[in-house]
């Protein structure tokens, strides 16, 4: 596009009104269409500052159930905002169909256009395209489900008391990161099928639990009895030959609780389920921070530049945009006082821009590192990268030596058995692969969060629940483990044991109610 074409901006200055926004949206939609961005319809809501804080406090859910933790969140946001520590996010977008995005009324015209490009076309197309979102979330039904959850929980509060519900929610929230199947990938099912299943499940839920806990000894439990049970020698009558339950370790703690906790009432199971469902809904977002933000930044940058090239915005707006954009993708160095980890916007934007560069103007290095994509049409390659990866695999696949050099990434090993930290690799020929591998791992949820699974529910013994923490690189559980297993014990209703294992060796045991916590010999 020629920048010399006579400029006819849609609007100038920093004031906006709805008709101007509509015209900008129409233009953005036209460009998005040209770039073949596949999006849900947009629902753009103009809100006040206070409403933005509300939306923030409810972690972006447009309708939320009541819980004190959201109140705490609100107070924190309000305080930070009042003290000027935090500019309110200029974008909040919800993975739903239609895709809901919020525009704050105080924003300037530039900001509104930027947010529309970023959220309504960037994030929106990511939500619709990325495999994790396609697999794990159902954008069309989430708002309905939230409404259901809110009503259901309100009804429970009425019937069973606010306090009882609050305690249950506290316990569920403590475990919500363990409310998804992390290592299994479910096959996508349609909304109707899900609804049908849910109905069936509800009617059988309690009976199944009752079946499990029947104490008549000769009912075989589970359909995969373990041959050669541990107790064979001590158990000549074969009383324990029913095998143990669950037959395989369960990573989804909330699911296990919902289905198997002996004493929970049906309404309590339903609430556990609600928390689990919402955790599942947010699960893809936790795994695609870099990609999601990178993708949105790439598109706002591309679309804004097109608006300028086509003469639809003036220089003033463009300068304001560039300043804002530069602030968003700023990555302070590790020794900078403003450093707070890697900025996902910066990293993601850099990688997507770099993929485009590799496609359009590959160097020898690129041809060597990325033979598959060097010189291919950039739009298709970008789409492929967006659709089929999560942060971990995306970085592993697409982080190029150039981006590592630009960001001057280096790898430090922090081993508490060594006196000093050690620089293991830097952005050079020998280090690229190691740095990339480490950075990818840094984004793997399985590494960021402790790996904890249910291994046994003692259904014939004391009904206690045993979990294993598979420890990695001698990284122990943090102090919060006790409050969490206390919550778990409240849900389960019987004693809970948590065993930390490293390479098959027990390193520590935790119990609730507390018995002893001697480190294993």
């Amino acid at each position: 596009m020629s920048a010399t074409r006579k400029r006819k901006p849609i609007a100038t200055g920093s004031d906006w009104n709805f008709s101007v926004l509509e015209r900008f949206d129409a233009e953005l939609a036209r460009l998005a269409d040209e770039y073949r961005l596949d999006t849900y319809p947009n629902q753009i809501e103009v809100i006040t500052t206070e409403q933005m804080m509300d939306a923030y406090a409810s972690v972006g859910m447009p309708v939320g159930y009541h819980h004190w933790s959201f109140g705490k969140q609100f107070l924190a946001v309000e305080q930070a905002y009042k003290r000027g520590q935090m500019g309110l996010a200029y974008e909040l977008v919800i993975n739903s169909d239609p895709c809901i995005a919020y525009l704050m009324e105080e924003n300037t015209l530039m900001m509104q256009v930027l947010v529309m490009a970023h959220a309504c076309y960037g994030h929106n197309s990511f939500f619709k395209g990325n495999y994790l979102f396609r697999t794990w979330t159902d954008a069309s039904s989430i708002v309905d489900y939230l409404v259901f959850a809110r009503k259901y929980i309100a009804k429970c509060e009425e019937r069973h008391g606010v306090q009882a519900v609050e305690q249950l929610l506290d316990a569920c929230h403590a475990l919500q990161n363990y409310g998804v199947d992390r290592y299994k990938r479910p096959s996508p099912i349609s909304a109707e099928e899900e609804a049908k299943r849910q109905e069936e499940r509800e009617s059988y839920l309690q009976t199944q639990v009752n079946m499990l806990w029947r104490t008549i000894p000769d009912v075989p439990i589970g359909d995969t009895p373990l041959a050669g049970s541990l107790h064979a020698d001590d158990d000549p009558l074969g009383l324990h030959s029913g095998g143990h339950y669950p037959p395989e370790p369960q990573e989804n703690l909330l699911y296990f609780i919902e289905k198997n906790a002996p004493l929970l009432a049906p309404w309590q199971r339903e609430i556990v389920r609600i928390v689990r469902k919402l955790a599942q809904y947010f699960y893809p977002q936790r795994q695609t921070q870099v990609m999601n933000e990178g993708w949105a930044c790439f598109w706002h940058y591309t679309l804004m530049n097109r608006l300028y090239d086509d003469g639809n915005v003036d220089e003033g707006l463009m300068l304001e945009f560039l300043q804002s954009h530069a602030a968003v993708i700023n990555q302070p160095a590790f020794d900078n006082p403003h450093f707070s980890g890697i900025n996902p916007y910066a990293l993601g934007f850099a990688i997507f821009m770099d993929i485009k560069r590799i496609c359009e103007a590959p160097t020898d290095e690129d041809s060597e590192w990325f033979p598959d994509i060097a010189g291919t049409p950039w739009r298709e390659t970008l789409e492929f990268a967006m659709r089929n990866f999560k942060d971990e695999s995306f970085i592993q696949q697409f982080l190029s030596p150039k981006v590592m050099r630009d960001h001057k990434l280096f790898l430090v090993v922090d081993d508490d058995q060594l006196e000093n930290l050690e620089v293991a690799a830097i952005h050079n020929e020998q280090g690229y692969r190691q740095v990339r591998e480490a950075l990818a791992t840094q984004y793997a949820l399985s590494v960021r969060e402790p790996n904890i699974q249910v291994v046994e529910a003692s259904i014939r013994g004391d009904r206690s629940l045993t979990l294993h923490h598979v420890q990695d690189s001698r990284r122990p559980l943090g102090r919060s483990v006790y409050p969490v297993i206390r919550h778990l014990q409240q849900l389960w209703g019987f004693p809970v044991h948590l065993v930390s294992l490293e390479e098959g060796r027990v390193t520590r045991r935790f119990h609730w109610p507390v018995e002893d916590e001697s480190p294993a010999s």
Partner: protein
Amino acid sequence: MTYFIDRRPNAKHKSAVNRQRFLERYRKHIKRSVEEAVNRRSITDMERGEKVSIPAKDISEPVFQHGPGGARNIVSPGNKEFVPGDKIRRPSGQGGGSGAGEGGASNQGEGVDEFAFTLSREEFLEFVFDGLELPHLQRKPLKSLEEVKMVRAGLSRDGVPSRISITRSMREAYARRIAMRAPIKRALKEALEALEAEERKDTVLRNPARIAELKTEIERLEKRIAGVPFIDTYDLRYHQLSAQPQPSNQAVMFCVMDVSGSMTQNHKDIAKRFFLLLYLFLEKHYEKVELVFVRHHTAAREVSEEEFFYSRETGGTIVSSALSLVNKIIEKRYPVGQWNLYVAQASDGDNWDDDSNICRDLLVKQLMPQLQYYAYVEITPHDHQSLWHEYESVVKEFPERFAMRQIVEAGDIYPVFRELFKRRLSQS
């Protein structure tokens, strides 16, 4: 496809329920902060919010996390001079080598982190009076109609010249002039027409007598028109003021407290709540409330609020010294017609035996007739002494306006005012 929706008119305070839940849950922590604030702040400074801090560890929502320790790899941006194999001294202050990116985790056990937020004014007051069993205090009109306020009440035909309404008077005059001249003008017009008709006739046919008659008539009418007065007493309009009975919108509250050695800081803190409660009540009813602090041991003195609550004295107690000082101040600065007078007295009940009946006489004869209300609290778990008994006889004479109560803890304060609030509320 895009829809724009303007959500700004939507209901506000969507998070109010969650906020209330949070406050409820951490009631104990918040109460402690509020109590500190009450003791620190001035009585007149209660009606604003308060910043509250709660240790972060008390409100954390626990999840499974990695603790410090073990080995981990950290990738960071911004390398300047490092090469592989470099050893870096472990940064101090981060226990056990928790690395960058784990900031959230390392905050966990430390307890120094505070979660700070601001209570709104309403929330703050609710906590201040928590446990005081307060009913809703509403602004209710008082019916003590001693003062009148002149308000504009339209126009009237009579009044003093200084309140003349020139516009309205001129308008009346103009209307009157039109009205009065109209018939004359009509007659004049007819006469003129007749004259003209007469003069247009052929000279032979003219009737000179008729012409002369018409001319005289015209002259007469013109005189009459000129004679209509430009302004007349009937035209004058005056702004009218009518005297509307007004509740006096200012009050003065005397805080009287015994500061002899036997009053401990704890006594004073309870007393402060007592004064505060009355102050807030008055503040809701009057536009202007002044505070006068009078403290006494054997002699009474008017002091600043700071001195009133926080300085200590020793010595005996003569209550009447304070009462007569209050009386003097009223005479000097707060004429009864213009001020609503309230007295709140707090003491531990000690008084010189001979002095108590002097107090009673002072109250019954001089003070009570002028006062709206007198509230007395005795902060002591012990038996009553002579002062209490004398005051009981004052209650008999002024059961409506004199309240007394023994207080052991803060929760006993409100009932002192129960009569006051009930009376006010039931009047409306």
